[in-house]
């Protein structure tokens, strides 16, 4: 469904992603795991197209030059040069890290804003589905999103991506800064989303422990380079991964 080949991203003279290739088949749950500064967010921005936007902005103000090589194909179509909004229309939706929501709008309004591309009836349906997925959100319906806790905001952020009815969902560090119990809730929700809505999901995460058991396939990157790949079970058994990400 998504295929990334030989992705090469430079921020000025620093290389952020070096010859990174990966593949996601429809209906699979794939993780890209790496520590800080490994290039996870750059990868997500490249796939979702935000980097194309950043690049033109930086060129205009004479700032950092971003160099991009490689190819991103989605459903057999080359989308490397498309703008982020065009990619969303094709069903490729990103949930950015640190749960960006609209703090001044209430929870339901946030979901409605995200459902801009969909029909009213669909929006109503999906809001119900989001509440089914995250029951805690139901009673916070009219609360201003800025007053929600970090975990609740993360749920709203994921809910907002669901409103678009994506074919492929990109989750950038969904567990960042959450308590273990909240992490478990979210991981359960991800599994549920995949089973019930038939979504294809790509997760990036530096905290591998809760993610590895649920994924079909994982890629481990370090300093922008692919160091290891394998199914979830394979990665869990590998001594390097154990040492680096489980602290065993």
């Amino acid at each position: 469904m998504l295929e990334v080949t030989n992705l090469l991203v430079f921020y000025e003279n620093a290389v952020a992603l070096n010859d990174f290739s990966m593949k996601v088949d429809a209906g699979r749950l794939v993780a890209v795991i790496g520590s800080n500064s490994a290039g996870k967010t750059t990868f997500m921005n490249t796939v979702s197209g935000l980097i194309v936007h950043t690049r033109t902005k930086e060129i205009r103000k004479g700032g950092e030059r971003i160099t991009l090589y490689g190819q991103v194909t989605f459903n057999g179509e080359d989308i490397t040069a498309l703008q982020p909004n065009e990619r969303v229309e094709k069903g490729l939706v990103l949930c950015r890290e640190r749960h960006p929501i609209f703090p001044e709008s209430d929870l339901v309004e946030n979901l409605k804003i995200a459902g801009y591309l969909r029909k009213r009836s669909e929006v109503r349906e999906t809001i119900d589905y989001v509440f089914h997925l995250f029951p805690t959100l139901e009673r916070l319906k009219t609360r201003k999103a800025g007053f929600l806790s970090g975990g609740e905001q993360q749920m709203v952020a994921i809910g907002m991506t669901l409103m678009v009815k994506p074919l492929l969902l990109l989750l950038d560090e969904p567990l960042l800064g959450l308590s273990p119990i909240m992490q478990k809730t979210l991981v359960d929700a991800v599994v549920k989303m995949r089973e019930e809505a038939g979504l294809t999901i790509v997760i990036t995460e530096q905290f591998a422990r809760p993610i590895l058991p649920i994924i079909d396939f994982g890629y481990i990157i370090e300093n922008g380079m692919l160091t290891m790949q394998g199914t979830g079970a394979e990665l869990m058994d590998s001594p390097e991964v154990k040492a680096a990400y489980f602290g065993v």
Partner: protein
Amino acid sequence: MVVKRKRKERIDRGIKARSDDIFALTSFREMLYVAVPPVLPVLLLLVLPLVLPLYWKKVLISAAVFALLAMSWDFIAAVGMVSLGQALFFGMGAYTTGVLDHYAGLPIWLSIPLATVIGGFLSAILLLPVIRLRGVYFSMVTLVLPLMIERIIEATALFGGTEGITGIQSFPNQWVEVYLVLVVLLLCLFGFRRLMTSDYGLVLKAVSDNDRAVMSAGINIYWSKAQALFIAGSVGSFCGAYLTHVYMFVGMPAFALDYSILPLASAVVGGMGTFAGSVMGAMILVPLSEALRGVGGLRTVIYAISLVVFIVALPEGIFHYIQRKYHQFERWVEVEG
């Protein structure tokens, strides 16, 4: 077949690295590399009055005044206060010197420095109630204040009302007149640039970057902002006081919108946050506006179009662009992947 992939690399010139870090200048070339950027404008500004005809000397004076106002705008913009009312500072200084001259009969060498300090103080006091406002709210208040004061003067006939105060003493001769403003301009330029790299300047810059982090460090940001307002207000007031003595007149036009908008345009065209950019912008825009007087009715249109072209083509500002080209070069390198 492997396709050769290339990217454009941007790196510092060798001479910059050598003269930056090691600071053991070993050749004339390196010394010139370090010395030319600061010395060139100094020489240019000091020599220009000697060669320019009288009319263009007056233009230079006006350009220097707008450059000072632009620097004062740039300074408070660096502290996170985007002002649309440099005319407030300008008018405060102008009226203070007018009053000191006309009612108290102070000599010129006393009235200008006094007006500089008092005007800066009054401006800071006037803006003190809105110091907690940020962004567009602060801008709106600063935009309205000078226009309001203008109307107050008109309505109450304060300090001559619509007539203004005439017969203010002029400078002893035109050389004092020109060189006073140029020397102050250079002092402000290098002083501000030095100030912003000192610890004090770092705190001010931090206030605009993240004021909450500055508060968390135990610094009273409102006190810092008030100090910044006083400094910027003093610079603006000096401009007002100086031009009042040049024109030998002070009146309601001292609060005109021109003194708010042109400095802002200069700073934006020249490049924000560098002060040198503000000077450069004013030195381009003011003579440009004068040169266009010959065009007649379409003057403002051409002026506005050139402003738009500058801002669209070089949003970073002229100074930033030149600085980058001076310190860095670009070349195509093969991508190693």
